């Protein structure tokens, strides 16, 4: 809420940004009246608050469409990207963490350590550029930008998620094409965090394998594989999940850059364009939706944590 006031008080005339600097004063005035910008600040805030609860986020000053309609159009693409990057994050972080935790000091473990440092010091947009350069321009395996090739543009929109829409339509080549487009941005968004999470998982595995209960199980002759994957892996994930949740939540922010670089037609790129044009309603709308996504991701993280960590459940039972 403070953000709204902040945005209105700060300099930079949205009218000038929308209509150009040489706009005649009358036209600017009419425009202002249309958008209630001539009213006092507290009234503007009140109007905005009233509308926000009805998901009326006002009109975008650039596209002249409802911001909520714009966001509804662009959000599925961002959601698809987030989901894909989460899946990639999981399939990278877990196996790498388990493998490097199995034999600390092995070649695999050392390679992991180097990877982790690389992962942390290349920013997300750096990954996007590097991946584009290598896989799109030099090797020509993947398309550099966009969401789907032109020949598949007329895909029937059901969920708005390209990959799922193409699957529903049974159009396999289109599905593969969409997947290929998805790969670079999704990997760029998640790889830096994924190697970090693998490191945390590794530390957890090493810590847990030295515990007394593992020794006890070994002495009972329980197969090493079962000990490892059932009784060591499970408690080790608990440390990873909160970090992963935070990383996924902050990748909503990094999506701003990745979507811009990869020309991914998602909400973040829309927000980015709005920011460059000082389109206040659109900025506030996008920030609001991202705040919501942030809360949802954090809630899901808490629920997952609660589901996999019996200690949390027992604690609550004891207290009640």
């Amino acid at each position, binding site marked *: 809420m403070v953000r709204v006031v902040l945005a209105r008080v700060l300099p930079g005339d949205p009218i000038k940004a929308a209509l150009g600097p040489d706009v005649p004063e009358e036209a600017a005035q009419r425009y202002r009246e249309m958008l209630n910008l001539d009213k006092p600040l507290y009234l503007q805030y009140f109007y905005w608050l009233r509308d926000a609860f009805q998901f009326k986020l006002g009109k975008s000053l650039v596209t002249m469409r409802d911001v909520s309609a714009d966001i509804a159009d662009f959000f599925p693409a961002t959601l698809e990207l987030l989901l894909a990057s989460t899946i990639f994050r999981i399939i990278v972080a877990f196996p790498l963490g388990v493998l490097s935790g199995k034999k600390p000091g092995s070649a695999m473990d050392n390679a992991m350590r180097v990877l982790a440092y690389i992962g*942390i010091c290349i920013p997300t*947009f750096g990954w996007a*550029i590097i991946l584009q350069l290598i896989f799109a321009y*030099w090797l020509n395996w993947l398309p550099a930008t966009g969401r789907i090739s032109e020949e598949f543009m007329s895909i029937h929109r059901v969920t708005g998620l390209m990959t799922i829409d193409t699957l529903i339509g049974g159009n396999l080549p289109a599905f593969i094409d969409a997947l290929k487009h998805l790969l670079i941005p999704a990997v760029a968004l998640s790889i830096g965090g994924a190697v970090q999470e693998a490191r945390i998982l590794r530390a957890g595995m090493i810590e847990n394998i030295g515990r007394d209960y593992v020794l006890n199980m070994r002495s009972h002759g329980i197969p090493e594989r079962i000990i490892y994957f059932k009784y060591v892996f499970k408690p080790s994930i608990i440390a990873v999940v909160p970090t992963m949740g935070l990383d996924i*939540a902050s990748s909503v922010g990094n999506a*701003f850059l990745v979507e811009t670089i990869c020309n991914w037609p998602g909400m973040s790129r829309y927000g980015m364009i709005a*920011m460059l044009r*000082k389109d206040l309603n659109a900025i506030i709308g996008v920030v609001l939706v991202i705040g919501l996504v942030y809360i949802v991701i954090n809630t899901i993280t808490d629920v997952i944590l609660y589901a996999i960590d019996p200690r949390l459940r027992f604690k609550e039972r004891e207290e009640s």
Partner: protein
Amino acid sequence: MSKNYDTLVRKEREMRMESLRRVWFRFSRNKLAIAGFVMLVAIILLALLAGYVTPYPSHAGLYINFKEKFQPPSLKHIFGTDMYGRDVFTRVIFGFRYALMMVGVVLGIIVPAGTVLGLLAGYYRGTLIDHIISGASEVFVAVPPLVLALAICSVLEPNVLNALLAITLMWWPWYMRMVHSLTSSLRNEPYVWAAKALGMGTAHILFKELLPNMLGPILTKATLDASWVIIIGASISFVGLGAQPPTPDLGTMLSEYCRYLPAYWWMTLGPLLGVIVLVLSFNLVGDGLRDAFAGE
């Protein structure tokens, strides 16, 4: 009484120095940390002396020499030249200056401010002061930091100063929260009670009793955060909301140069390497500090 007190104070100071020496010893035995430290010192020196050590200092700002544009990396131009014929290597070294300045300003503001606010809120946990400070911080942590910084920058004029302002605004809550949780866990320690019983003022308890015991986590976080400041600063100028060309800022350079991908890829690689080296050295030092402080 007073003599005894003085000896106590002296003894405490000696113990603190001793502890710092142990930290330094552990730090200096950590090869990676020392590597990072040396890299960082080298970068700072390079940045400070950028005018003298770079081959073409005039290429940092506005300079045009179309005859030498788009030259691939060679001995003359280590990272090649850009679309105006400027030496990319020179510009990257000057870019360090902006990145380090950003780190200095942002951390110089948020570390003291966040620490003081966190101490206050943590010490007076549950009171009005805590509610006000924590409430204010919650406004800023409800949205991913980068989005908030971008949003703040977008409503301001795009320049370096406002980018600094945006990063400072979005980052202080994280400090405040860390110090807050440390303070609230330390405030019932016996030594705090003892200081209270001796009739020490609140300021003494906060800054002389509590603060020295959190130096480790604060320093570690500050070093690790330096790399985040660099990345977020570069991100802001990358999208065009921070420093404007021809400022030799790493993010600005990246956004200018990556338009010439894939044909002139070396231009993009230069500033990218700059960011990577800078972030890596801060991270190595930060990890080293954390390990060194862990035993205290």
